[in-house]
């Protein structure tokens, strides 16, 4: 209990020091001295500091053009409809979130400057940053924050509704302070508030075609499916950010067209480069390829453990040993991926279970477990489609080959891409799925594996697991938490229905003269904030 209070205050103090350092009011030496005095025991990572130091002197100007995949003619700047990269990137140019993430994925204050948890991590106090203006001149207050969260709660179509269910009450303390009460303790609550849907708009705002935000740019033009154009605001509250005079996002779905545009200099940045050609691009002297290793998308084949024959644990184990992870990574992703260990947490997370041996392709073990399952020569059906992800069918076919060597017959059924997420995922016994990275272990486990989640695609419900993660959620002792999460990973990897075989790297391409484009632990294009963080050399 005492530890919790200390930690709450410590977080606030630390955030204050950091804010002063960011603003330039504190030298690096004094900042370190301050942190040592707090005795917060917080690891101040070098990249955290070097990131902010770099931001102190970027060049202002230039017209920055990004060629992006992940948009459609049905896009809108209503945050309740965000699902793909172009809108997320556009959103972070005109709006700000409440919580931002540093390059390592730790939450830092954006419009919610700092926060403090009362003991038990159930009640939280958030401090709203002062002196921030919207593009229409209005000053940011707690009412704007409360409204911006509110549109994603209650009777809403927003996909963020599920993660906000844990909030039981939001109360305004004064114009710059908000109290939020949760239904249960959650030490990682600020991470939830950093979700990309939760951008801040003025209180009562609904005119999504003419967005008003606190971001560094204003929207000049928006043609859904074609592109957007932004202009620098000039009075952005973050020093050293929003450095381009104008920014254009061009929606280029075809990877060959996007690569050609990058090579011919028509765009200065491109996302989702093709792993099969990226080695050639790395040799191009005019280009710079930025690779985010180990924190990209998780690619899986998931079976529903309540549907026969996948309710048989031996079969599930056989299927986990029967997949040649390295071969898929080499052939489909040209080596630009790390093997998954049958749960969706990656090595970048501090709670990653390093003692759990990496499951490798073992046709003998697979054959042994399959025989033990007693299914005779039964055929197993796996449904896959480009609608799951572009190369899903290729991965499924390699899986079929590797299972054959173990004497298991896998029938790969290719289904239509159209309507995949409606009719196949969460419904059929065995299919392909991918998961984006979640920034907290708690979110990862709760969204994918807890009994109450709508997205538990393996339908794996274990009360001991639920109890474990609920306890871990509120546990402020990091060592105890680690033990609990390690156990959780063991349980999933051993008993679960998911075969997570690869975690791919993000591959972004930039013109040589674009800087401040480091890899980020969350998303590509520097956490989709390249317009806000980047600059020309």
């Amino acid at each position, binding site marked *: 209990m005492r530890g919790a209070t200390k930690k709450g205050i410590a977080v606030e103090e630390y955030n204050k020091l950091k804010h002063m350092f960011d603003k330039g009011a504190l030298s690096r030496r004094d900042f370190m001295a301050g942190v040592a005095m707090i005795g917060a025991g917080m690891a101040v990572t070098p990249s955290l500091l070097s990131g902010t130091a770099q931001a102190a002197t970027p060049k202002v100007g230039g017209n920055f053009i990004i060629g992006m995949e992940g948009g459609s003619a*049905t896009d*809108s700047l209503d945050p309740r409809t965000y699902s793909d990269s172009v809108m997320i990137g556009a959103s972070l140019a005109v709006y700000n979130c409440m919580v931002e993430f540093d390059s390592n994925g730790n939450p830092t204050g954006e419009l919610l400057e700092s926060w403090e948890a009362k003991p038990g991590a159930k009640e939280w106090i958030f401090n709203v940053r002062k002196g921030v203006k919207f593009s229409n001149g209005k000053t940011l207050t707690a009412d704007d924050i409360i409204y911006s969260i509110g549109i994603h709660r209650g009777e809403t179509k927003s*996909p963020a509704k599920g993660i906000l269910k844990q909030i039981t009450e939001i109360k305004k303390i004064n114009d710059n302070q908000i109290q939020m009460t949760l239904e249960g303790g959650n030490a990682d609550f600020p991470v939830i508030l950093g979700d990309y849907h939760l951008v801040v708009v003025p209180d009562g705002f609904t005119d999504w075609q003419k967005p008003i935000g606190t971001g560094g740019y204003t929207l000049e033009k928006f043609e*859904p499916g074609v592109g957007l154009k932004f202009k620098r605001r000039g009075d952005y509250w973050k020093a050293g950010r929003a450095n381009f005079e104008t920014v254009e996002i061009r929606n280029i*779905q075809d990877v060959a067209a996007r690569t050609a545009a990058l090579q011919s200099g028509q765009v200065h940045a491109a996302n989702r480069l093709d792993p099969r050609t990226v080695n050639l691009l790395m040799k191009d002297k005019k280009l710079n390829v930025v690779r985010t290793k180990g924190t990209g998308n998780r690619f899986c084949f998931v079976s529903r453990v309540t549907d026969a024959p996948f309710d048989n644990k031996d079969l599930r184990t056989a299927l986990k040993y029967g997949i040649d992870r390295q071969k898929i990574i080499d052939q489909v992703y040209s080596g630009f991926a790390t093997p998954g260990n049958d749960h969706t947490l990656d090595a970048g997370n501090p709670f990653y279970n390093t003692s759990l041996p990496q499951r490798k392709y073992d046709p003998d073990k697979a054959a042994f477990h399959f025989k033990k399952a007693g299914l005779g020569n039964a055929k197993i059906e796996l449904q896959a489609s480009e609608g799951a992800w572009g190369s899903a069918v290729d991965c499924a076919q390699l899986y079929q080959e590797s299972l054959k060597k173990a004497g298991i017959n896998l029938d790969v059924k290719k289904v239509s891409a159209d309507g995949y*997420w*409606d009719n196949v995922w969460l419904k059929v016994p065995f299919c392909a799925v991918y998961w984006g990275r979640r920034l907290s272990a708690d979110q990862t486990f709760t969204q994918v594996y807890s009994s109450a989640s709508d*997205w538990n695609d393996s339908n794996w419900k274990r009360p001991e697991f639920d109890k474990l993660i609920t306890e871990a959620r509120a546990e402020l002792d990091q060592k105890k938490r680690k033990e609990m999460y390690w156990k959780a990973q063991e349980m999933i990897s051993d008993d679960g229905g998911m075969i997570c075989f690869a975690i791919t790297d993000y591959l972004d391409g930039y013109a040589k003269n674009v800087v401040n484009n480091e890899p980020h632990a969350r998303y590509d294009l520097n956490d989709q904030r390249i317009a806000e963080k980047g600059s020309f050399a």
Partner: protein
Amino acid sequence: MLKTIVIRVALGLLTLWAVSILIFGATEILPGDVASAVLGQGATPETLAVFRHELGLDRPSYVRYLEWFFNALHGDLGIAMTNKRVIVETIAPRLSNTLFLAGYAALIAVPTSVVLGIVAAINEGKFVDRFVNIISLMTISVPEFFIAYVLILYLAVQFEVFPSLSTVFPEMEFSEKIYMAALPAFTLTMLVMAHMLRMTRTSVLSIMSQPYIEMAFLKGLTRSQVIVRHALPNAAAPIISVIALNLAYLIVGVVVIEVVFVYPGIGQFMVDGVAKRDLPVVQACGLIFAGAFVGLNTVADVLAIMVNPRLRHPR
């Protein structure tokens, strides 16, 4: 003649109405709806219900169709269900882009194909004829994205003559648009030339076996004179039909070109609409495409009648 045109137009409107019902029905039968398509992986039963109620999707389908139809008769094509934009405003620039590209390609392709077809017919069996045939067959057999990528590789990346991204914006100068859309226009030209060229050649050659042609030769006219003055006007009808068909294809069938060259036309717009089950968008695009086909075919029929004196004054 006027009577023919009026009947044709009336039948065309009837076709458009039938098309609208078919498109509505087909999109309804497709699995999923706009709510599940837009929310994707983020859909839960509650969010889906709210989304649907907001758009009035919980009403029966005939009610929704009649409401759309009634509005369409007044020129109001509705609002897109996915991003709440007025459809007429969003389609107009995309449609004008498509028409621009179609016109650009047609202006190059049609005269070239007809002239080359006539040249091939005049020089039947000779080297020119065989050469033109082989080249046109090659370009039509190769998939359009392949031609597109080859053109981009050589003319945009290696030699930087034209831009690889052909995205045009309304505020661009006409000359700039011509420059930006050059590569897609060339690709489309190569795609449609073969059909028109070969039809011209075949049509002309089939007339050549007629007795009056033999008479013209016996009179002493040269081969080119015979073809241009006597054979071509009679051969015009099938040629005009094929041209109309290809023009319609240039408007409705070029989604792949739009994707590869990132050209903001109406094809990609409709594909996105279908993928998200955005019914008003799909209906609007369907109407435009059907209208293009019906309109162009009607014009072709009328022209065919006008060109042939025997049909102009039926006995």
